């Protein structure tokens, strides 16, 4: 069943897009990640123009995270003060990011930068996750008790000026730290079409040292608002938000996420993390191949 995407300007198989959304949703339900890092590359492989893929993926993530935020709010898992600081940073970041996006687009390097950033980011995070989960699995096989890491924030964070008490997170740190973290994810959201949860969550745990019970909720809260702001910024600047594409993806991912979260309860968390690590690494490798192998098409066209 084909449907014409008005902004992307091409006709796609509706079923493929819904299933793609469903598959990504399944993973995001299982692993608690947004899945934008999968949606955007897959859309680009399918032939959607990169800018449209990035912008519409951000729109889809807004919808995919809303029910998660509500669920976390019900169980009191959101630190609104911390989240608010991060949202402010994120909106600034997506504003800065779009300027960077435009500059790279003019230089003709946006596709390369997108791929390269994906390779570096997914490669390093996937590698770390794989190592950590394999170590945990091996330790359990040997019957050792998992070591608990002492929760404390990085010395770099302590150097930042001005301190504020974030009660829910159990932290007394400079608001600049979460603000800058927000800026970074904002840049990632606007330029890569990712929510940034897979950068945010480890950073909140290992850099800031936030209380574990508010990490996921606060990260989702930040993603919800920053992706919404990013959709607006893309709509106004690049005019690349394809509402039909975003909604088709969302129909799939909303369904997939529910199935995925049920499935996740039946599996051990360290095996889940290892699976996610392998998927993340696979995307990184695919992107790296795209960068280094001779492409089928050497030429590209843009208006100007």
């Amino acid at each position, binding site marked *: 069943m*084909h*449907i*014409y995407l*008005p*902004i992307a*300007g*091409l*006709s796609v198989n509706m079923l493929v897009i819904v299933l793609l959304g469903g598959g990504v949703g399944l993973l995001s339900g299982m692993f608690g990640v947004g899945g934008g890092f999968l949606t955007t590359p897959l859309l680009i492989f399918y032939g959607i123009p990169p800018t449209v893929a990035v912008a519409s993926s951000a*729109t*889809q993530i*807004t*919808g*995919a*995270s*809303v*029910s*998660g935020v*509500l*669920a976390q709010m019900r169980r009191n898992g959101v630190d609104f003060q911390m989240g608010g600081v991060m949202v402010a940073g994120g909106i600034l970041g997506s504003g800065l990011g779009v300027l960077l996006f435009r500059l790279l687009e003019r230089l*003709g*390097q946006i*596709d*390369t930068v997108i791929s*390269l950033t994906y390779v570096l980011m997914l490669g390093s995070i996937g590698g770390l996750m794989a190592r950590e989960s394999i170590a945990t699995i091996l330790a359990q096989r040997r019957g050792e008790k998992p070591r608990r890491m002492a929760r404390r924030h990085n010395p770099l964070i302590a150097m930042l000026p001005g301190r504020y008490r974030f009660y829910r997170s159990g932290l007394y740190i400079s608001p600049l730290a979460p603000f800058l973290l927000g800026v970074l994810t904002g840049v990632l959201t606007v330029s890569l079409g990712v929510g940034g949860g897979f950068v945010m969550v480890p950073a909140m745990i290992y850099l800031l040292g936030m209380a574990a019970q508010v990490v996921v909720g606060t990260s989702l809260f930040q993603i919800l608002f920053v992706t*919404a702001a990013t*959709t*607006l*910024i*893309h*709509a*106004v600047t690049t*005019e690349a*938000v394809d*509402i*039909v594409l*975003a*909604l088709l993806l*969302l*129909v799939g991912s*909303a*369904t997939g996420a*529910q199935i995925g979260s049920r499935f996740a309860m039946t599996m051990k968390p360290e095996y889940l993390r290892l699976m996610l690590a392998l998927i993340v690494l696979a995307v990184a490798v695919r992107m790296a191949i795209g*960068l*280094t*192998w*001779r*492409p089928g*098409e*050497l*030429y*590209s*066209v*843009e*208006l*100007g």
Partner: protein
Amino acid sequence: MRQRLAALAALLCLGAAKPVLVPDVSDSQVQIVYSFTGAELLLFGAILYPHGRQPDHPADVAVVLKGPTQSILVREKQKVAGMWLNADSARFRSAPTFYAIASSRPLSQLVDQRTAAIYELGLDSLQMSPASGAEPAEQARFENGLVDLKRRSGLYVEDSHGVAIREGALYRAQIAIPARVPVGRYVAETFLIQDGKVVAGAVREVDIGKEGFERFVTLAAHHWPFTYGLVAVALSLAIGWGAGALFRRN
């Protein structure tokens, strides 16, 4: 219609010495709606010879469907430090967004290069007005790259046996329009070619545009971008929340 009557009148009253083409297209409005997966356009018509006498050598017909021209930048990837990056680029001021040509015989047998260049017959003879400064060899490299790219996406087409002529008087050609066709005003040109010369030509216009919902979405995204963005966010929130609520109840 008026043009056709005028052509007939010219023929009947003046007994013109030159043949005349009476062209038509199956659809002067191609509408892109949600189910659009491409279209077939039929370009057909009649060849009217003076006094109804056909020449001894049958004439040939070439049909061109051309989209609006654009100023474009073509980028070329090169291997830099182990990665393929956009390195070199060239600008063309008038590259057609779409170009399809069908002829009754291969173009090389119909016209010489000069005539082909004058009438822009064939993918090798497009006049793209490259920006000054580039060397001819480099221009040619980029032009070939562009034509090859467009050809693979179905936006540049050359069909050397695409025109069928019946009884030396009626011709027809079918041109495929792919789903990712750019919108705008297209011209359908028909050329009657005899002994290497274009002896008659005629032009029809074809409008390709988005209609209905697709048109509305495109216009909204362009004219009210902020509202469009708000609606996108609102719809996204509504579906996400709705799906969550639905599954929670079950």
